């Protein structure tokens, strides 16, 4: 199955960083879902999603963030987003995601944000 989407994973400061590359739509969202599922099952509840190379997101991709966020927060973790291109940010913004998720300029800021403790609100 050819896809125009891939995920690279690494660790930084006790946080798992998932770098998304390409087009996140209904076709590729299951790959992202599996990746977060694997991290959660491995006990990694602090996840920073690096969107530097994310070219596109549709609601299927947004749905992955939504389906895991509550579970991770209840376990003391979170998903924070970083380095989102303006045209991708628009999609998050239209749906009110900035009020629900921390969105940082850089991955380093997202990783550092975890040290501040649980998200308020």
């Amino acid at each position, binding site marked *: 199955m050819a896809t125009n989407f891939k995920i690279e994973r690494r660790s930084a400061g006790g946080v798992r960083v998932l770098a998304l590359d390409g087009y996140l*739509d209904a*076709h590729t969202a299951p790959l992202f879902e599996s990746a977060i599922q694997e991290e959660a099952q491995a006990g990694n509840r602090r996840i920073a999603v690096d969107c530097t190379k994310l070219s596109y997101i*549709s609601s299927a991709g947004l749905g992955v963030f939504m389906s895991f966020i509550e579970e991770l927060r209840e376990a003391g973790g979170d998903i924070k987003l970083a380095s989102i291109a303006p*045209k991708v940010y*628009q*999609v998050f913004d239209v749906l009110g995601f900035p009020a629900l998720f921390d969105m940082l300029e850089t991955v380093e800021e997202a990783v550092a944000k975890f040290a501040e403790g649980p998200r308020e609100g």
Partner: protein
Amino acid sequence: MPSFERTFSMKVPSSTENLALIRDFVSGIGAQAGFDENDSARLALAVDEACANVIEHAYQLEETHEVTVRVVVDPEEIKFEIVDTGRGFDPGQLNELQVEELIRQRKSGGLGLRLIRTIMDDVQYRIVPGEKNELRMVKKLKK
């Protein structure tokens, strides 16, 4: 841009793999119709959402069906018709829940429709029982 109406049509198998093809098709026509790159990308997103809904809900992810995307461009507007022959599903019946509530209920189904309504100027759904379902979306050209 020509002053007459032009029609473009694309028919693809009902696999999510083809959403990328559909987006390229739509953004290309959007650019030709006079939308800038950003607006063409938003049109492609709306059509992606509509087609993904068809594949997931009308065809239950079966890849053996067809999705038709018809685009009509005239000097006033660009009109999209997404046609399927699957299970009729009126997206207008979806509740307009807040995103916080959708998260609580672990539902993402309403998000695509919300994007479509934000991007397009008019959205209508028509079910012809036993024949087809048709989602019509219209975006006015900026003057």
